[in-house]
């Protein structure tokens, strides 16, 4: 049986509640406003629930149980940092981004050959052991390339075909 089955049951219960509420909402009141409002909103909820179920199903189909459970969706970078302030790590449009106003102890490895654009204002950043000057650097990196960030301010690393310094 599919691993999606218990999740499908969960969504089916929610969907059943929404549709039951729609039925009650239309039949058990004489107030037109209440009927229209409740039915519209319950159907909206039902629609979003169905869409969520579909997305969850596609997610399981596309990536498999291990990836969903571990939260690792084929990222081009593997790694993390010790501390950071105001940071974002994840997809941003067509690139994968690690951005932070201040990043300490960052340690990332490319999991695939990819284009990158690495920008930082100040600090100590090393790409494959080479210490980089503050500014923006772009190029292609092979799988296994390491990015070490001892500490950096205004840091932004983009990975993906669309990564550019501009």
């Amino acid at each position, binding site marked *: 049986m599919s691993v999606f089955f218990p999740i499908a049951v969960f969504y089916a219960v929610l969907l059943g509640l929404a549709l039951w509420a729609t039925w009650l909402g239309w039949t058990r009141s004489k107030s037109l*406003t209440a009927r229209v409002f409740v039915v*519209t909103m319950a159907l909206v*909820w039902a629609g979003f629930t169905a869409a969520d179920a579909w997305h969850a199903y596609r997610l399981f189909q596309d990536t498999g149980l291990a990836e969903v459970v571990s939260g690792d969706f084929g990222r081009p970078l593997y790694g993390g940092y010790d501390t950071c302030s105001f940071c974002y790590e994840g997809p941003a449009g067509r690139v994968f981004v690690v951005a932070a106003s201040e990043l300490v102890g960052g340690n990332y490895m490319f999991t695939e050959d990819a284009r990158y654009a690495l920008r930082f204002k100040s600090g100590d950043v090393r790409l494959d052991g080479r210490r980089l000057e503050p500014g923006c650097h772009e190029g292609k990196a092979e799988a296994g390339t390491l990015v070490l960030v001892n500490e950096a301010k205004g840091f932004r690393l983009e990975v993906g075909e669309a990564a550019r310094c501009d």
Partner: protein
Amino acid sequence: MNLVMLELRKHRLLVGGMLLVALLWAAWMARLVLAGESLATLAIHIGFLFALTPVGLLVPIVLARTLSGEATGPLAFLLTSPRRGLAHVSARFGAAFATLALYYGVLVAVSAWVAASAGIRYDAWLPLATWGYFLASWVAPVVILGIVYGLVVAAYRPGRGGQAVAVAAVFGVFKVWGWLGGQTLGRLDFLPKLPLPEVVVPREVAPFLGMTPSDLDLRQALQPLFDGVPTAPVFVGLLLSVLLFWVAVRLWEEVEWA
């Protein structure tokens, strides 16, 4: 005005309790700060803000519970009174919103004062803007949603799934709200933006905020990432409040026929 006073009298325990909590809190913080314990006060205050902020949710919950029992309770005559629904809904909304505005006003003012005394420097308009932003984008829609919930329950035949109907409707409203928020946040760039506030956190305060101990200039840190604070949530909140208000007014006038 009578309707507002009636609301306040009905909920005097809740309103009085919330304001008492806020004022006692302000007094305790003031005592700590004046005793020279600025940093410890900031830490205590931040911790307790997580507990004090959601207390405001009690207001829409109590509103909804009261309204849902109104049609079968001793105040059922209000629903059939010749006064228009607009007056009733406005009175309830006004009383609840004023209470919450006062409560969160005290919290924001205390926060601003405690932060300032701990050495955090910020723009003078920041507390007022935070207060207004929060009230317009969150408090107003949630309060009116509480009223709509109660009226929806009252508009249905009692004991036959009225709560389920209202819950489904409210979930739908939350979905619409979230969808609108997601759509507008990225796309309404033409709306005016608030400037990034000037907030400077000194080295000794940073650990209390979960950051590495170094001088932090918030505006400098955020400037490469954002060019301003989007106001789309405020507009979405106001739009939603107006729509729900209209629904509530119509519901009020139709509840008696249920």
